[in-house]
Protein backbone atom coordinates (compact mmCIF):
# COMPACT_ATOMS: atom_id res chain seq x y z
CA UNK A 1 0.00 0.00 0.00
CA UNK A 2 2.63 2.52 1.04
CA UNK A 3 4.47 2.15 -2.26
CA UNK A 4 1.27 2.27 -4.31
CA UNK A 5 -0.41 5.38 -2.90
CA UNK A 6 -3.75 6.49 -4.31
CA UNK A 7 -3.36 10.20 -5.05
CA UNK A 8 -5.51 12.85 -6.72
CA UNK A 9 -3.63 15.67 -8.45
CA UNK A 10 -4.86 19.13 -9.44
CA UNK A 11 -3.20 21.28 -12.10
CA UNK A 12 -4.19 24.89 -12.93
CA UNK A 13 -0.91 26.61 -13.79
CA UNK A 14 -2.03 27.75 -17.23
CA UNK A 15 -5.17 27.22 -19.30
CA UNK A 16 -5.96 23.55 -18.56
CA UNK A 17 -7.97 22.54 -15.50
CA UNK A 18 -6.53 19.09 -14.88
CA UNK A 19 -7.55 16.50 -12.30
CA UNK A 20 -5.81 13.16 -12.39
CA UNK A 21 -5.84 10.10 -10.18
CA UNK A 22 -3.04 7.56 -9.96
CA UNK A 23 -2.23 4.52 -7.89
CA UNK A 24 1.55 4.54 -7.61
CA UNK A 25 2.72 4.53 -11.22
CA UNK A 26 -0.64 3.41 -12.62
CA UNK A 27 -2.87 5.99 -14.30
CA UNK A 28 -6.51 5.69 -13.20
CA UNK A 29 -8.00 8.95 -14.46
CA UNK A 30 -6.91 12.00 -16.44
CA UNK A 31 -9.74 14.55 -16.64
CA UNK A 32 -8.93 17.86 -18.35
CA UNK A 33 -11.13 20.86 -19.06
CA UNK A 34 -9.39 23.31 -21.36
CA UNK A 35 -10.15 26.99 -21.88
CA UNK A 36 -7.90 27.11 -24.95
CA UNK A 37 -10.79 28.05 -27.27
CA UNK A 38 -11.56 31.10 -25.14
CA UNK A 39 -7.98 32.30 -25.59
CA UNK A 40 -7.70 31.61 -29.32
CA UNK A 41 -9.03 34.98 -30.48
CA UNK A 42 -6.52 36.74 -28.22
CA UNK A 43 -3.63 34.81 -29.80
CA UNK A 44 -2.35 33.70 -26.41
CA UNK A 45 -3.44 32.71 -22.93
CA UNK A 46 -5.21 35.53 -21.06
CA UNK A 47 -4.56 34.96 -17.34
CA UNK A 48 -7.89 36.30 -16.07
CA UNK A 49 -9.84 34.26 -18.62
CA UNK A 50 -7.93 31.15 -17.51
CA UNK A 51 -8.54 31.82 -13.81
CA UNK A 52 -12.27 32.29 -14.34
CA UNK A 53 -12.46 29.07 -16.30
CA UNK A 54 -10.59 27.12 -13.59
CA UNK A 55 -13.09 28.21 -10.94
CA UNK A 56 -16.03 27.02 -13.04
CA UNK A 57 -14.45 23.77 -14.19
CA UNK A 58 -12.86 22.56 -10.96
CA UNK A 59 -15.68 20.73 -9.17
CA UNK A 60 -17.07 19.05 -12.30
CA UNK A 61 -13.55 17.97 -13.29
CA UNK A 62 -12.83 16.45 -9.86
CA UNK A 63 -16.16 14.63 -10.10
CA UNK A 64 -15.33 13.33 -13.56
CA UNK A 65 -11.90 12.10 -12.48
CA UNK A 66 -13.32 10.20 -9.50
CA UNK A 67 -15.93 8.55 -11.73
CA UNK A 68 -13.36 7.71 -14.39
CA UNK A 69 -11.05 6.14 -11.78
CA UNK A 70 -13.91 4.36 -10.03
CA UNK A 71 -12.54 5.26 -6.61
CA UNK A 72 -14.03 7.02 -3.61
CA UNK A 73 -12.48 10.26 -2.37
CA UNK A 74 -12.26 8.72 1.09
CA UNK A 75 -9.80 6.09 -0.14
CA UNK A 76 -7.28 8.66 -1.33
CA UNK A 77 -3.90 8.71 0.41
CA UNK A 78 -3.20 12.30 -0.46
CA UNK A 79 -4.05 15.34 -2.57
CA UNK A 80 -1.35 16.91 -4.74
CA UNK A 81 -1.51 20.27 -6.43
CA UNK A 82 0.72 22.40 -8.65
CA UNK A 83 2.06 25.10 -6.30
CA UNK A 84 4.13 26.69 -9.10
CA UNK A 85 5.57 27.85 -11.36
CA UNK A 86 2.76 29.24 -13.51
CA UNK A 87 0.22 32.05 -13.73
CA UNK A 88 -0.25 33.34 -10.19
CA UNK A 89 -4.02 33.80 -10.26
CA UNK A 90 -4.60 30.51 -12.06
CA UNK A 91 -2.38 28.56 -9.67
CA UNK A 92 -4.24 30.03 -6.70
CA UNK A 93 -7.55 28.55 -7.85
CA UNK A 94 -6.07 25.06 -7.89
CA UNK A 95 -4.22 25.52 -4.61
CA UNK A 96 -7.42 26.76 -2.94
CA UNK A 97 -9.36 23.76 -4.22
CA UNK A 98 -6.68 21.27 -3.22
CA UNK A 99 -6.34 22.67 0.27
CA UNK A 100 -10.09 22.67 0.85
CA UNK A 101 -10.42 19.15 -0.54
CA UNK A 102 -7.54 17.74 1.50
CA UNK A 103 -8.71 19.46 4.66
CA UNK A 104 -12.32 18.35 4.27
CA UNK A 105 -11.29 14.77 3.59
CA UNK A 106 -8.60 14.71 6.29
CA UNK A 107 -5.85 13.87 3.78
CA UNK A 108 -2.29 15.14 3.54
CA UNK A 109 -1.66 17.92 1.01
CA UNK A 110 1.35 18.04 -1.29
CA UNK A 111 2.14 21.27 -3.11
CA UNK A 112 4.39 20.15 -5.98
CA UNK A 113 6.47 21.69 -8.75
CA UNK A 114 4.92 21.86 -12.22
CA UNK A 115 8.19 21.10 -14.02
CA UNK A 116 9.05 18.11 -11.84
CA UNK A 117 5.50 16.86 -12.50
CA UNK A 118 6.10 17.05 -16.26
CA UNK A 119 9.07 14.70 -15.72
CA UNK A 120 7.39 12.37 -13.24
CA UNK A 121 4.38 11.77 -15.48
CA UNK A 122 6.51 9.44 -17.57
CA UNK A 123 6.27 6.89 -14.75
CA UNK A 124 2.64 6.40 -15.77
CA UNK A 125 3.78 5.48 -19.29
CA UNK A 126 7.10 3.71 -18.91
CA UNK A 127 7.33 2.72 -15.24
CA UNK A 128 9.70 3.94 -12.55
CA UNK A 129 11.88 6.84 -13.65
CA UNK A 130 15.53 5.82 -14.09
CA UNK A 131 17.85 7.65 -11.72
CA UNK A 132 19.39 9.76 -13.05
CA UNK A 133 17.18 10.96 -15.91
CA UNK A 134 17.83 13.92 -18.20
CA UNK A 135 14.63 15.77 -19.04
CA UNK A 136 13.91 18.17 -21.87
CA UNK A 137 10.73 20.12 -21.10
CA UNK A 138 9.34 22.15 -23.96
CA UNK A 139 6.00 23.94 -24.14
CA UNK A 140 4.45 27.37 -24.58
CA UNK A 141 5.64 28.23 -21.09
CA UNK A 142 8.93 26.40 -20.65
CA UNK A 143 12.08 25.25 -22.43
CA UNK A 144 14.32 23.59 -19.86
CA UNK A 145 16.94 20.94 -19.66
CA UNK A 146 16.86 19.32 -16.23
CA UNK A 147 18.80 16.56 -14.56
CA UNK A 148 16.95 14.56 -11.92
CA UNK A 149 18.55 11.99 -9.64
CA UNK A 150 15.48 11.78 -7.36
CA UNK A 151 12.34 13.43 -8.67
CA UNK A 152 11.07 14.11 -5.13
CA UNK A 153 14.20 15.85 -3.89
CA UNK A 154 16.86 16.55 -6.51
CA UNK A 155 16.14 18.28 -9.80
CA UNK A 156 19.02 20.35 -11.21
CA UNK A 157 18.64 22.95 -13.93
CA UNK A 158 21.17 22.34 -16.73
CA UNK A 159 19.89 25.01 -19.08
CA UNK A 160 16.82 26.91 -20.14
CA UNK A 161 15.66 29.48 -22.64
CA UNK A 162 17.13 32.93 -22.26
CA UNK A 163 14.19 34.54 -24.06
CA UNK A 164 11.06 32.85 -25.46
CA UNK A 165 9.79 29.36 -24.76
CA UNK A 166 9.88 26.98 -27.74
CA UNK A 167 6.07 26.82 -27.87
CA UNK A 168 5.85 30.60 -28.00
CA UNK A 169 7.99 30.59 -31.14
CA UNK A 170 5.55 28.12 -32.74
CA UNK A 171 2.61 30.37 -31.80
CA UNK A 172 4.33 33.45 -33.18
CA UNK A 173 5.28 31.88 -36.51
CA UNK A 174 1.79 30.42 -36.88
CA UNK A 175 0.44 33.92 -36.43
CA UNK A 176 2.80 35.40 -38.98
CA UNK A 177 1.64 32.69 -41.40
CA UNK A 178 -2.04 33.31 -40.47
CA UNK A 179 -2.49 29.73 -39.26
CA UNK A 180 -4.25 30.49 -35.94
CA UNK A 181 -3.59 29.61 -32.28
CA UNK A 182 -2.15 27.43 -30.79
CA UNK A 183 0.64 27.20 -33.34
CA UNK A 184 2.31 23.90 -32.44
CA UNK A 185 -0.08 21.36 -33.97
CA UNK A 186 -0.76 23.37 -37.13
CA UNK A 187 2.94 24.04 -37.86
CA UNK A 188 3.61 20.33 -37.34
CA UNK A 189 0.88 19.49 -39.86
CA UNK A 190 2.11 21.87 -42.56
CA UNK A 191 5.73 20.91 -41.93
CA UNK A 192 5.01 17.29 -42.80
CA UNK A 193 4.47 18.34 -46.43
CA UNK A 194 7.37 20.77 -46.52
CA UNK A 195 11.13 20.56 -47.01
CA UNK A 196 13.03 21.07 -43.74
CA UNK A 197 16.17 22.03 -45.68
CA UNK A 198 14.44 24.53 -47.97
CA UNK A 199 15.48 27.58 -45.92
CA UNK A 200 18.52 27.74 -43.62
CA UNK A 201 17.15 29.45 -40.52
CA UNK A 202 19.58 30.25 -37.67
CA UNK A 203 20.22 27.84 -34.78
CA UNK A 204 20.27 29.97 -31.63
CA UNK A 205 23.10 29.69 -29.07
CA UNK A 206 25.05 27.03 -30.97
CA UNK A 207 28.27 28.98 -31.41
CA UNK A 208 31.49 27.82 -29.74
CA UNK A 209 31.28 30.54 -27.07
CA UNK A 210 27.54 30.23 -26.38
CA UNK A 211 26.18 28.61 -23.23
CA UNK A 212 26.14 24.89 -24.01
CA UNK A 213 22.71 24.00 -22.59
CA UNK A 214 20.74 27.24 -22.84
CA UNK A 215 18.24 27.96 -25.61
CA UNK A 216 17.22 31.07 -27.50
CA UNK A 217 14.32 31.24 -29.95
CA UNK A 218 13.82 34.97 -30.23
CA UNK A 219 16.39 35.44 -33.01
CA UNK A 220 14.93 32.53 -34.96
CA UNK A 221 11.44 33.96 -34.61
CA UNK A 222 12.59 37.30 -36.00
CA UNK A 223 14.55 35.68 -38.81
CA UNK A 224 11.55 33.66 -39.95
CA UNK A 225 9.21 36.65 -39.75
CA UNK A 226 11.65 38.76 -41.78
CA UNK A 227 12.03 36.07 -44.39
CA UNK A 228 8.25 35.88 -44.79
CA UNK A 229 7.85 39.65 -44.86
CA UNK A 230 10.53 39.96 -47.55
CA UNK A 231 8.62 37.50 -49.71
CA UNK A 232 5.39 39.33 -49.20
CA UNK A 233 7.00 42.71 -49.88
CA UNK A 234 8.32 41.32 -53.16
CA UNK A 235 4.81 40.20 -54.04
CA UNK A 236 5.84 36.55 -54.00
CA UNK A 237 3.84 33.72 -52.57
CA UNK A 238 5.03 32.41 -49.20
CA UNK A 239 5.79 28.67 -49.34
CA UNK A 240 3.98 27.95 -46.07
CA UNK A 241 4.88 24.27 -45.92
CA UNK A 242 8.59 24.83 -46.51
CA UNK A 243 8.70 27.72 -44.04
CA UNK A 244 6.93 25.60 -41.40
CA UNK A 245 9.23 22.63 -41.99
CA UNK A 246 12.43 24.69 -42.01
CA UNK A 247 11.45 26.69 -38.92
CA UNK A 248 10.43 23.52 -37.06
CA UNK A 249 13.69 21.84 -38.05
CA UNK A 250 15.70 24.74 -36.61
CA UNK A 251 13.86 24.42 -33.28
CA UNK A 252 14.02 20.64 -32.89
CA UNK A 253 17.59 20.46 -34.17
CA UNK A 254 18.80 22.71 -31.35
CA UNK A 255 16.60 21.08 -28.72
CA UNK A 256 17.70 17.53 -29.47
CA UNK A 257 21.33 18.42 -30.09
CA UNK A 258 21.65 20.09 -26.67
CA UNK A 259 19.69 17.40 -24.85
CA UNK A 260 21.87 14.62 -26.24
CA UNK A 261 24.99 16.66 -25.50
CA UNK A 262 23.87 17.08 -21.87
CA UNK A 263 23.26 13.32 -21.54
CA UNK A 264 26.73 12.59 -22.92
CA UNK A 265 28.47 15.18 -20.75
CA UNK A 266 26.78 13.94 -17.59
CA UNK A 267 27.00 10.24 -18.43
CA UNK A 268 23.21 9.90 -18.30
CA UNK A 269 21.72 7.20 -20.53
CA UNK A 270 18.02 8.12 -20.25
CA UNK A 271 16.38 11.17 -21.82
CA UNK A 272 12.74 12.03 -21.26
CA UNK A 273 10.94 14.70 -23.25
CA UNK A 274 7.82 16.36 -21.88
CA UNK A 275 5.66 19.46 -22.22
CA UNK A 276 3.24 20.35 -25.00
CA UNK A 277 5.91 20.63 -27.71
CA UNK A 278 6.85 16.99 -27.02
CA UNK A 279 3.75 16.17 -29.06
CA UNK A 280 5.60 17.52 -32.11
CA UNK A 281 6.14 14.61 -34.49
CA UNK A 282 9.47 15.86 -35.88
CA UNK A 283 10.87 16.45 -32.37
CA UNK A 284 9.98 12.87 -31.47
CA UNK A 285 11.51 11.46 -34.64
CA UNK A 286 14.74 13.42 -34.50
CA UNK A 287 15.19 12.78 -30.77
CA UNK A 288 14.70 9.06 -31.40
CA UNK A 289 17.26 9.08 -34.19
CA UNK A 290 19.89 11.00 -32.24
CA UNK A 291 19.34 9.09 -28.99
CA UNK A 292 19.73 5.79 -30.81
CA UNK A 293 22.96 6.97 -32.37
CA UNK A 294 24.25 8.03 -28.95
CA UNK A 295 23.12 4.92 -27.10
CA UNK A 296 20.59 6.84 -25.03
CA UNK A 297 17.21 5.39 -24.10
CA UNK A 298 14.47 7.91 -25.06
CA UNK A 299 11.24 8.14 -23.07
CA UNK A 300 8.41 10.32 -24.34
CA UNK A 301 4.94 9.95 -22.82
CA UNK A 302 1.86 9.93 -25.07
CA UNK A 303 0.88 13.47 -26.16
CA UNK A 304 -2.04 13.77 -23.71
CA UNK A 305 0.36 13.23 -20.81
CA UNK A 306 2.88 15.71 -22.25
CA UNK A 307 0.51 18.67 -22.22
CA UNK A 308 -0.54 20.08 -18.84
CA UNK A 309 -2.75 17.66 -16.92
CA UNK A 310 -3.63 16.56 -13.40
CA UNK A 311 -2.24 13.04 -13.75
CA UNK A 312 1.32 14.37 -13.81
CA UNK A 313 0.70 16.18 -10.54
CA UNK A 314 -0.87 13.09 -9.02
CA UNK A 315 2.09 11.06 -10.23
CA UNK A 316 4.59 13.27 -8.43
CA UNK A 317 2.31 13.42 -5.37
CA UNK A 318 2.22 9.61 -5.25
CA UNK A 319 6.01 9.57 -5.37
CA UNK A 320 6.12 12.05 -2.46
CA UNK A 321 3.86 9.76 -0.43
CA UNK A 322 5.80 6.63 -1.39
CA UNK A 323 9.11 8.23 -0.38
CA UNK A 324 7.73 9.64 2.86
CA UNK A 325 8.26 13.30 1.94
CA UNK A 326 6.77 15.91 4.29
CA UNK A 327 3.30 17.15 3.45
CA UNK A 328 2.61 20.85 2.87
CA UNK A 329 1.03 23.13 5.44
CA UNK A 330 -2.49 24.57 5.24
CA UNK A 331 -1.01 28.00 4.56
CA UNK A 332 0.57 26.71 1.32
CA UNK A 333 0.61 29.52 -1.20
CA UNK A 334 0.78 29.57 -4.96
CA UNK A 335 4.28 30.58 -6.07
CA UNK A 336 4.32 31.75 -9.67
CA UNK A 337 8.13 31.52 -9.76
CA UNK A 338 8.69 28.38 -7.67
CA UNK A 339 12.28 27.34 -8.47
CA UNK A 340 12.70 24.06 -10.30
CA UNK A 341 15.08 22.99 -7.52
CA UNK A 342 12.06 22.71 -5.19
CA UNK A 343 10.20 19.59 -6.37
CA UNK A 344 7.66 20.20 -3.62
CA UNK A 345 6.82 22.65 -0.86
CA UNK A 346 7.17 20.82 2.44
CA UNK A 347 5.62 22.24 5.57
CA UNK A 348 7.86 23.51 8.32
CA UNK A 349 8.63 20.70 10.80
CA UNK A 350 6.89 22.31 13.77
CA UNK A 351 3.75 23.43 11.98
CA UNK A 352 3.69 20.17 10.15
CA UNK A 353 3.06 18.11 13.28
CA UNK A 354 0.45 20.58 14.33
CA UNK A 355 -1.27 20.39 10.97
CA UNK A 356 -1.51 16.68 11.07
CA UNK A 357 -2.80 16.66 14.57
CA UNK A 358 -5.51 18.99 13.41
CA UNK A 359 -6.25 17.21 10.17
CA UNK A 360 -6.67 13.86 11.89
CA UNK A 361 -9.41 15.45 13.93
CA UNK A 362 -11.20 16.11 10.68
CA UNK A 363 -11.09 12.55 9.42
CA UNK A 364 -14.39 10.93 8.82
CA UNK A 365 -15.05 8.41 11.54
Amino acid sequence: MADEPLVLGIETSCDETGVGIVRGTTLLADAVASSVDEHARFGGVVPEVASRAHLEAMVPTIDRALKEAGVSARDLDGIAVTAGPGLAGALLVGVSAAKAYAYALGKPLYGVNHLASHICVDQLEHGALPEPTMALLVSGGHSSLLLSTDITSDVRPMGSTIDDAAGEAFDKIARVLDLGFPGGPVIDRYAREGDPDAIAFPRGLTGPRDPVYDFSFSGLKTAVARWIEARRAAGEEVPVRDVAASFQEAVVDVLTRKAVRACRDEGVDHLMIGGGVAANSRLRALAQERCEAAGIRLRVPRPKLCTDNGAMVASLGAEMVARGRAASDWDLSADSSLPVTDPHVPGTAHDHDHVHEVSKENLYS
Partner: protein
Amino acid sequence: MLLLALDTATPAVTVALHDGTDVVASSSQVDARRHGELLLPAVDRVLAEAGTRLDAVTGIVVGIGPGPYTGLRVGLMTADTFGLALGVPVHGLCTLDGLAYASDLDVPFVVATDARRKEVYWARYADSRTRVTDPAVDRPAEIADAVAGLPAVGAGALLYPDTFPKAHEPEHVSAAALASLAVRKLAAGEELPPPRPLYLRRPDAQVPKNYKVVTPK
Protein backbone atom coordinates in the same frame (compact mmCIF):
# COMPACT_ATOMS: atom_id res chain seq x y z
CA MET B 1 -27.76 23.59 11.91
CA LEU B 2 -24.13 24.60 11.66
CA LEU B 3 -23.36 27.15 8.94
CA LEU B 4 -19.79 27.96 7.90
CA ALA B 5 -19.44 31.43 6.38
CA LEU B 6 -16.45 32.69 4.36
CA ASP B 7 -15.70 35.92 2.56
CA THR B 8 -12.56 36.92 0.65
CA ALA B 9 -14.04 39.61 -1.61
CA THR B 10 -12.53 42.52 0.32
CA PRO B 11 -9.09 42.88 1.95
CA ALA B 12 -10.55 40.92 4.90
CA VAL B 13 -10.14 37.16 5.12
CA THR B 14 -13.10 36.38 7.30
CA VAL B 15 -14.60 33.13 8.58
CA ALA B 16 -17.47 32.44 10.99
CA LEU B 17 -19.50 29.55 12.31
CA HIS B 18 -23.21 30.01 13.09
CA ASP B 19 -25.35 27.43 14.89
CA GLY B 20 -28.68 28.88 13.79
CA THR B 21 -29.03 31.00 16.91
CA ASP B 22 -25.69 32.68 17.33
CA VAL B 23 -22.25 33.11 15.84
CA VAL B 24 -20.23 30.57 17.83
CA ALA B 25 -16.75 31.48 16.54
CA SER B 26 -15.23 33.86 14.04
CA SER B 27 -11.97 35.19 12.67
CA SER B 28 -11.15 38.24 10.57
CA GLN B 29 -7.74 39.25 9.26
CA VAL B 30 -7.10 42.15 6.93
CA ASP B 31 -4.38 41.39 4.39
CA ALA B 32 -5.31 41.96 0.78
CA ARG B 33 -2.36 40.01 -0.57
CA ARG B 34 -2.57 36.76 1.35
CA HIS B 35 -6.14 35.46 1.04
CA GLY B 36 -4.85 32.16 -0.29
CA GLU B 37 -2.51 31.55 2.63
CA LEU B 38 -4.76 32.79 5.42
CA LEU B 39 -8.15 31.27 4.65
CA LEU B 40 -7.63 27.56 5.42
CA PRO B 41 -5.76 28.15 8.71
CA ALA B 42 -8.56 30.56 9.69
CA VAL B 43 -11.20 27.91 9.02
CA ASP B 44 -9.16 25.47 11.09
CA ARG B 45 -8.90 27.95 13.96
CA VAL B 46 -12.58 28.83 13.95
CA LEU B 47 -13.58 25.15 14.01
CA ALA B 48 -11.13 24.45 16.84
CA GLU B 49 -12.41 27.45 18.79
CA ALA B 50 -15.94 26.13 18.47
CA GLY B 51 -14.75 22.67 19.48
CA THR B 52 -16.08 21.08 16.33
CA ARG B 53 -14.93 19.59 13.02
CA LEU B 54 -15.62 20.46 9.43
CA ASP B 55 -17.77 17.37 8.87
CA ALA B 56 -20.25 18.68 11.46
CA VAL B 57 -21.03 21.63 9.18
CA THR B 58 -24.48 21.38 7.55
CA GLY B 59 -24.16 24.21 5.06
CA ILE B 60 -21.79 26.81 3.69
CA VAL B 61 -22.35 30.43 2.73
CA VAL B 62 -19.75 32.38 0.80
CA GLY B 63 -19.46 36.02 -0.20
CA ILE B 64 -19.77 36.22 -4.00
CA GLY B 65 -18.38 39.73 -4.25
CA PRO B 66 -18.20 41.94 -6.10
CA GLY B 67 -14.52 42.16 -5.21
CA PRO B 68 -11.02 41.94 -6.68
CA TYR B 69 -11.04 38.67 -8.59
CA THR B 70 -7.99 36.84 -7.34
CA GLY B 71 -8.97 37.10 -3.69
CA LEU B 72 -12.65 36.59 -4.42
CA ARG B 73 -11.96 33.24 -6.10
CA VAL B 74 -10.10 31.90 -3.05
CA GLY B 75 -13.26 31.98 -0.95
CA LEU B 76 -15.51 30.69 -3.74
CA MET B 77 -13.19 27.83 -4.71
CA THR B 78 -12.79 26.84 -1.06
CA ALA B 79 -16.55 26.89 -0.47
CA ASP B 80 -17.25 24.95 -3.69
CA THR B 81 -14.74 22.26 -2.79
CA PHE B 82 -15.89 21.96 0.82
CA GLY B 83 -19.38 21.47 -0.54
CA LEU B 84 -18.19 18.74 -2.89
CA ALA B 85 -16.23 16.89 -0.19
CA LEU B 86 -18.86 17.20 2.52
CA GLY B 87 -21.96 16.85 0.35
CA VAL B 88 -23.59 19.90 1.94
CA PRO B 89 -25.32 22.85 0.20
CA VAL B 90 -23.20 25.90 -0.70
CA HIS B 91 -24.99 29.26 -0.83
CA GLY B 92 -23.77 32.58 -2.13
CA LEU B 93 -24.49 35.98 -0.69
CA CYS B 94 -23.58 39.39 -2.08
CA THR B 95 -20.62 40.72 -0.09
CA LEU B 96 -22.11 44.21 -0.11
CA ASP B 97 -25.24 42.78 1.55
CA GLY B 98 -23.09 41.41 4.37
CA LEU B 99 -21.53 44.81 4.89
CA ALA B 100 -24.95 46.46 4.80
CA TYR B 101 -26.29 44.02 7.37
CA ALA B 102 -23.38 44.75 9.70
CA SER B 103 -24.06 48.51 9.46
CA ASP B 104 -27.35 48.07 11.32
CA LEU B 105 -28.71 51.24 9.66
CA ASP B 106 -32.45 51.67 9.28
CA VAL B 107 -32.27 54.64 6.92
CA PRO B 108 -31.32 54.72 3.21
CA PHE B 109 -27.56 54.43 2.72
CA VAL B 110 -24.81 53.24 0.38
CA VAL B 111 -22.27 50.42 0.60
CA ALA B 112 -19.03 50.95 -1.34
CA THR B 113 -15.95 48.74 -1.39
CA ASP B 114 -12.61 49.33 -3.10
CA ALA B 115 -12.61 48.05 -6.67
CA ARG B 116 -9.05 49.35 -7.28
CA ARG B 117 -8.23 51.29 -10.47
CA LYS B 118 -9.87 54.32 -8.82
CA GLU B 119 -13.28 52.66 -8.87
CA VAL B 120 -15.71 51.36 -6.25
CA TYR B 121 -18.13 48.45 -6.11
CA TRP B 122 -21.35 49.87 -4.73
CA ALA B 123 -25.09 49.50 -4.18
CA ARG B 124 -27.85 51.47 -2.46
CA TYR B 125 -29.91 50.16 0.41
CA ALA B 126 -33.25 51.19 1.92
CA ASP B 127 -32.11 49.73 5.25
CA SER B 128 -29.53 47.20 6.44
CA ARG B 129 -31.49 44.26 4.97
CA THR B 130 -32.89 45.75 1.78
CA ARG B 131 -30.75 46.41 -1.29
CA VAL B 132 -32.48 48.63 -3.89
CA THR B 133 -29.91 48.67 -6.74
CA ASP B 134 -27.83 45.97 -8.39
CA PRO B 135 -24.17 45.97 -7.40
CA ALA B 136 -22.18 48.07 -9.85
CA VAL B 137 -18.62 49.25 -10.44
CA ASP B 138 -17.98 52.93 -11.15
CA ARG B 139 -15.67 55.86 -10.56
CA PRO B 140 -16.73 57.70 -7.40
CA ALA B 141 -17.15 61.04 -9.21
CA GLU B 142 -19.56 59.44 -11.68
CA ILE B 143 -21.95 58.29 -8.96
CA ALA B 144 -21.75 61.40 -6.77
CA ASP B 145 -25.30 62.44 -7.68
CA ALA B 146 -26.73 58.97 -7.11
CA VAL B 147 -25.31 58.77 -3.57
CA ALA B 148 -25.52 62.46 -2.59
CA GLY B 149 -26.49 63.08 1.02
CA LEU B 150 -26.57 59.40 1.94
CA PRO B 151 -24.58 57.81 4.74
CA ALA B 152 -22.12 55.26 3.45
CA VAL B 153 -20.16 52.29 4.79
CA GLY B 154 -17.25 50.24 3.45
CA ALA B 155 -13.63 50.87 2.53
CA GLY B 156 -14.64 52.29 -0.85
CA ALA B 157 -16.69 55.00 0.84
CA LEU B 158 -13.96 55.78 3.38
CA LEU B 159 -11.43 56.05 0.55
CA TYR B 160 -13.31 58.75 -1.38
CA PRO B 161 -14.62 61.35 1.10
CA ASP B 162 -15.42 63.81 -1.72
CA THR B 163 -18.10 61.47 -2.99
CA PHE B 164 -18.99 59.93 0.39
CA PRO B 165 -18.67 62.72 3.01
CA LYS B 166 -20.84 60.75 5.45
CA ALA B 167 -18.77 57.56 5.30
CA HIS B 168 -18.23 55.50 8.42
CA GLU B 169 -17.52 51.98 9.72
CA PRO B 170 -17.75 49.06 9.13
CA GLU B 171 -14.84 49.18 6.70
CA HIS B 172 -14.78 45.50 5.66
CA VAL B 173 -17.32 42.71 5.57
CA SER B 174 -17.35 40.16 8.39
CA ALA B 175 -18.28 36.54 7.91
CA ALA B 176 -20.18 36.81 11.18
CA ALA B 177 -22.55 39.34 9.62
CA LEU B 178 -22.73 37.29 6.44
CA ALA B 179 -23.63 34.16 8.44
CA SER B 180 -26.27 35.99 10.50
CA LEU B 181 -27.85 37.42 7.37
CA ALA B 182 -27.83 34.02 5.68
CA VAL B 183 -29.45 32.33 8.69
CA ARG B 184 -32.13 35.01 8.77
CA LYS B 185 -32.85 34.69 5.05
CA LEU B 186 -32.89 30.90 5.13
CA ALA B 187 -35.26 30.95 8.13
CA ALA B 188 -37.56 33.25 6.16
CA GLY B 189 -37.56 30.72 3.33
CA GLU B 190 -35.67 33.01 1.00
CA GLU B 191 -33.58 31.49 -1.73
CA LEU B 192 -29.93 32.56 -1.62
CA PRO B 193 -28.00 33.18 -4.83
CA PRO B 194 -25.75 30.43 -6.18
CA PRO B 195 -22.08 30.59 -5.15
CA ARG B 196 -20.92 32.15 -8.42
CA PRO B 197 -18.69 35.25 -8.57
CA LEU B 198 -19.94 38.78 -9.30
CA TYR B 199 -17.04 40.07 -11.39
CA LEU B 200 -18.93 43.00 -12.96
CA ARG B 201 -16.03 43.60 -15.34
CA ARG B 202 -14.87 41.68 -18.37
CA PRO B 203 -11.33 40.28 -18.29
CA ASP B 204 -8.74 42.74 -19.56
CA ALA B 205 -7.71 41.34 -22.87
CA GLN B 206 -7.09 42.88 -26.22
CA VAL B 207 -7.70 41.01 -29.42
CA PRO B 208 -4.42 41.61 -31.26
CA LYS B 209 -5.01 43.45 -34.51
CA ASN B 210 -2.10 41.95 -36.34
CA TYR B 211 1.34 40.67 -35.56
CA LYS B 212 4.07 43.24 -35.13
CA VAL B 213 6.07 43.56 -38.32
CA VAL B 214 9.77 43.01 -37.60
CA THR B 215 11.29 44.23 -40.85
CA PRO B 216 12.93 47.60 -40.24
CA LYS B 217 11.30 50.41 -42.20
